[in-house]
C-alpha cells in the first residue's frame, strides 16, 4: 500500500483530476475544470504539495496561467502571465501564443517556476506563478542567435523540457522543437548547445551544433549527471560531464524503431526508463506501430529494451502519447500512467507489467502528472 496518488490531466478541452485510492485501483473523477480550455500542461509543485499551475488558453482568448494553492480546489489567474516585452514602434515584437511547458524550480527556491512557450521563449516566476518575467538570456540572448535554425512543427515551435539540476539551481537544460537541447550554468544568463551525437536526418547537415528536434529531455532526479532524450531522431542517453549523446534507441527492436514523444525515468533507478514508441514512417502517422500500443522499458540504461503491453489492446488502437502525457508516481512499486490522443488514461501499479484503462472518452490528452 502506498499514499494515494492524484493524476492531473490536461486536455484539449479542459483539466480533469483523478484521485486514486491507496492501492491505485479505484479512481474518482474530479472535473472537468476549465471546460473548453486548451490545457497544455498541468503540474503539481513537489516542494509544497499544494500548488498546482496550469498552462491554458481557449480557441478565442490568449494564453494564461491558472494557479491553485490548495491542490486544485480553487483557482486564480496569474496577474502577469508570460509575455514578451513590448517593443518600440517599427520593431518586430513577439507575442506568446501558448504557454506550452511548466517546470517547478529548484528545491532551494520555493516559489520559483519556469515556463516554456510557443513561439520559443522562456519565462520565470518567483512568486509561485502569479507574475512572470522573461528569462532575458534566453529570449534576448540565445533566441536571436539560433532563430534561423528554429522552425515550427504542427503546433508551432516550442520551448519545453526545462530541467533544473537538483545539485545546482543555476544549472538548467531546455529542449526546443525544433532547435535542439541547450544548457545554462548561470541561471539562464547564457546558453550553449548540447546536441553532439544526436541525429538530425531531416536536415542536410548531420553535424549541426543545433537545429535538432528533442521531443522530451529528462534529467534523473537522484543522479543528475544522467540525462535521457526522446528525440525526433531516436532515443539517447548522456552521462555528464560528457557532452556527446549515445543513441540507445539503436537497441530497440528494428520493427518498432525508436521514434516517440515521451520518456519517463524511474526516480530510484537511473538505469531504468520507459518510452512509448510511435509510427515514425513515411508521413509520420503518429499512431502506435501497427495499431498495437506498448511501452518499452530499459533497465540497463538503454543497452536493451523489453516490451510491456499486458492489458493493452492487441490491435486497432490507433492512438499515441504526447510528450507531456506520460508520467510516474514515486510509490514502490512504481506506478506509471499515460494519456492518449484518443482520450484514454492507462495505468500500471507494477512498473509496467500490467496495464489497466482507468478512463476513456476524455478529450485529446496533452499532459498527465502524478501528485
Amino acid at each position, binding site marked *: 500500500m502506498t499514499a494515494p496518488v492524484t493524476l492531473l490531466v490536461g486536455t484539449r478541452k479542459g483539466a480533469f483530476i483523478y484521485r486514486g485510492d491507496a492501492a491505485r485501483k479505484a479512481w474518482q473523477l474530479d472535473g472537468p475544470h476549465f471546460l473548453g480550455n486548451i490545457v497544455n500542461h498541468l503540474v503539481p509543485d513537489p516542494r509544497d504539495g499544494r500548488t498546482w499551475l496550469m498552462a491554458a488558453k481557449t480557441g*478565442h*482568448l490568449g494564453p494564461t496561467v491558472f494557479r491553485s494553492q490548495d491542490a486544485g480546489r480553487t483557482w486564480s489567474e*496569474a496577474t502577469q502571465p508570460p509575455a514578451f516585452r513590448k517593443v518600440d514602434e517599427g520593431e518586430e515584437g513577439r*507575442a506568446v501564443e501558448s504557454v506550452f511547458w511548466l517546470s517547478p524550480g529548484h528545491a532551494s527556491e520555493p516559489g520559483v517556476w519556469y515556463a516554456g512557450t510557443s513561439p520559443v521563449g522562456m519565462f520565470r516566476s518567483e512568486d509561485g506563478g502569479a507574475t512572470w518575467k522573461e528569462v532575458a538570456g534566453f529570449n534576448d540572448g540565445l533566441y536571436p542567435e539560433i532563430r534561423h535554425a528554429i522552425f515550427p512543427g504542427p503546433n508551432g515551435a516550442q520551448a519545453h523540457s526545462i530541467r533544473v539540476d537538483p545539485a545546482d539551481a543555476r544549472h538548467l537544460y531546455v529542449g526546443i522543437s525544433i532547435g535542439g537541447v541547450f544548457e545554462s550554468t548561470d541561471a539562464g544568463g547564457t546558453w550553449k548547445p548540447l546536441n553532439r551525437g544526436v541525429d538530425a536526418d531531416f536536415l542536410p547537415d548531420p553535424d549541426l551544433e543545433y537545429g535538432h528536434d528533442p521531443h522530451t529531455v529528462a534529467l534523473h532526479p537522484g543522479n543528475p549527471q544522467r540525462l535521457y532524450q526522446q528525440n525526433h531522431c531516436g532515443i539517447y542517453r548522456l552521462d555528464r560531464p560528457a557532452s556527446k549523446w549515445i543513441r540507445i534507441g539503436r537497441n530497440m527492436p528494428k520493427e518498432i524503431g525508436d521514434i516517440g514523444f515521451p520518456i519517463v525515468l524511474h526516480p530510484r533507478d537511473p538505469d531504468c526508463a520507459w518510452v512509448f514508441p510511435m509510427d515514425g514512417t513515411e508521413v509520420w502517422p503518429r499512431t502506435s506501430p501497427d495499431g498495437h500500443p506498448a511501452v518499452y522499458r530499459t533497465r540497463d540504461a538503454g543497452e536493451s529494451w523489453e516490451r510491456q503491453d499486458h492489458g493493452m489492446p492487441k490491435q486497432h488502437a490507433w492512438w499515441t502519447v504526447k510528450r507531456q502525457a506520460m508520467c510516474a508516481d514515486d510509490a514502490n512499486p512504481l506506478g506509471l500512467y499515460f494519456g492518449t490522443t484518443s482520450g484514454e488514461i492507462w495505468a500500471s501499479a507494477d512498473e509496467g507489467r500490467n496495464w489497466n484503462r482507468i478512463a476513456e472518452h476524455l478529450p485529446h490528452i496533452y499532459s498527465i502528472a502524478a501528485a
Partner: protein
Amino acid sequence: MIRVLIPSPLFSYTGGQKQIEAEGDSLEALLSVLDARFPGMRHRIVDEQDRIRPHIRFFVNGKMAQRLDRRLLAGDEVMIVAALSGG
C-alpha cells in the same frame, strides 16, 4: 458612457455580465478601464504588442474597428466578438 457587449468567453471575468457601462475616449482607454475592473481581461483579447488577438474583433456602433486608437464618444456601443476558431 460606452456600452460594451461582452462575449461569453469573457464571462468568467465579468461575473456573467453581458453588458458593461464604462468610460474611455478610445478603444485603448476603454480596455484599460475594463482591465482595471476585470483584471486579466485585456491580455486575453489583446497581445503584449497591443495587437488584437487573431480570433477577436471589436465593432464600434456596428462597424469593425481594427486599431486600438479608434476614438470613442459617449453613447457609443462597443461589441467584443470572439470569432469562430475551429473545433
